């Protein structure tokens, strides 16, 4: 199943189709259409800029959830090398909603861990739509401790609607699994870099998000609750566009919002037209950001690293006194 086109992207897709058509025609008949193509491509570029400049928060949610966006395994393939995936939590079972393993970033070994969504129905069933069970978080923790033992940095990629809410998840301690990760990540003796690549859904996202540096892609979102959940609770309507739009704006979930709230450290720019329009360029941007920050963090002694990480989260929040 191909990912459905986002409504506001329709003009872009139409124009892309037109250009493809022209190219195909030219190829078939061996014509030189460069002169005709140039203005169309220019128009496409302008259209992308115009549409992506003023995305509403709700539209950003749609972009962040878009199945054409690069997922964790895409980034691992494009920005890392020598990936050896590791499986299982050693207690209950393997959870494919989180993937992780050894990889190299510019030749240096890192532990990379991320939520993994699926592009089609079959894969989404396997990945549970990127919604981990407790064993997924426990696998992630096992890998983080492994990285700590071998003094290797941890890189997490966040992309989940949230932790799974179901009978088995509750029985096996979803709360405890998430809480444990927050606790252990607060004292892990190696650098941790977290990046929200798509949707950062609540505690299920934060369980990979307690890090020395937290980044968000330009069109990613990060929220305490899904916009649908928020609208359903507060306005008894989680379905209508109007209420979802209201919740998306009210919750302040865009990268710029989180930067202003001092929850994230940096916004990673996406290619014009969003991450899905150019996976390679997007992965390169991620890689550049990770390498730059890792170079800084590697200079810190573990003790100082942990102290600063704790201080960072201890300072979050706004209140009057």
């Amino acid at each position, binding site marked *: 199943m191909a990912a459905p086109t986002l409504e506001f992207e329709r003009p872009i897709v139409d124009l892309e189709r037109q250009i493809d058509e022209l190219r195909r025609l030219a190829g078939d008949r061996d014509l030189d259409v460069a002169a005709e193509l140039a203005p169309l491509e220019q128009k496409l570029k302008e259209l992308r800029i115009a549409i992506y400049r003023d995305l509403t928060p709700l539209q950003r949610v749609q972009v962040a959830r878009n199945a054409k966006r690069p997922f964790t395994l895409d980034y691992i393939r494009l920005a890392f090398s020598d990936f050896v995936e590791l499986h299982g939590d050693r207690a209950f079972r393997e959870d494919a909603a989180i993937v992780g393993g050894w990889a190299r970033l510019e030749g240096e070994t890192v532990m990379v861990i991320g939520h993994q969504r699926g592009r089609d129905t079959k894969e989404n069933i396997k990945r549970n739509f990127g919604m981990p069970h407790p064993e997924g978080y426990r696998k992630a923790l096992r890998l983080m401790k492994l990285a700590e033992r071998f003094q290797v940095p941890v890189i997490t990629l966040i992309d989940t609607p949230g932790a799974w809410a179901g009978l088995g998840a509750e029985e096996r301690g979803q709360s405890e699994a998430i809480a444990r990760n927050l606790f252990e990540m607060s004292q892990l003796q190696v650098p941790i870099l977290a990046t929200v690549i798509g949707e950062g859904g*609540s505690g299920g996202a934060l369980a990979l998000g307690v890090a020395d540096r937290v980044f968000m892609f330009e069109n990613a979102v990060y929220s305490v609750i899904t916009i649908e959940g928020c609208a359903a609770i507060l306005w008894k309507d989680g379905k209508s566009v109007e209420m979802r739009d209201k919740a998306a704006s009210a919750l302040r979930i865009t990268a710029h919002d989180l930067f202003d709230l001092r929850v994230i450290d940096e916004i990673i720019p996406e290619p014009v037209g969003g991450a899905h329009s150019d996976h390679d360029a997007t992965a390169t941007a991620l890689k550049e950001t990770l390498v730059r920050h890792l170079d800084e963090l590697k200079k810190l002694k573990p003790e100082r690293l942990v102290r600063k990480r704790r201080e960072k989260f201890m300072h*979050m929040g706004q209140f009057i006194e």
Partner: protein
Amino acid sequence: MAWFRKEKKPPQPPRQRLEIPRDTWEKCEACGHTDIRDKFLRNFNVCPECDYHRRMRAHDYAGMLLDEGSVLEVGVELRSTDPLGFPDYPGRLKRALANAGDSDAILTVSGTLESLPVGLGIMDFAFMGGSMGSVVGEKIARLGQRCLERKHPLVIISASGGARMQEGVLSLMQMAKAAAVLSQLAERRIPYISVLTNPTTGGVSASYAMLGDAILAEPGAVIGFAGPRVIKQTLGQDLPEGFQTAEFLLDKGMVDRVVHRKELRSMLSRLMRHMTGRPASAGYTEA
């Protein structure tokens, strides 16, 4: 004649109506048992008939656990603000302040419990459903800091529906903030005991509530990550009997003990004594 003559009584003053205060009687929410309020209170607000642990206000809970005259509130000056400009939030805060008092969703105090110094946080469901926003996180951080400096054990009584939506992602980050505090206590070998009361769900359960060196739960308390309504929705079927209760969690290995409210004080004392290397109190010497 005189026999029949009605003795004239002096005019009586109008009979004084015995004023029964409205709150003299209380009714158990679980079994409907009605009893004198005082009887509920003397029973730690547990129904004398069915043992249902009724909701308690934070101040009452502190009074129940701590030694008389030892209670000192900390962080009382902290007030929630509206960092996102969230619709209706200032109004809701104002109403909560008027109805539930000025401690926000958690009362943080220091005091002594059976003469043991302790930092105690008690969540108050009456304040916006015990929801955790920036103030709750900051109060826990300050209480934890105080415990770190004084080497006092920390006890948190949870009662919360989860993170406070109206402060958005800042509420979410309070989960990490609390975990960061607790990791420091653990590092210094300062005990932290978590007590789960009805209900403890969402962001609170997925943070400090499940991180105790000992985790106790009140009988019957609903405890879980997702609320029962949400799970019912995702499953499209009814939940098994007793799902997500304290007893269920005990059975699944997620809490250490289910403790009746009347025994909580002595249980906390015993645990703290074990974890801080103190001798048993008089009641628990070698049998």
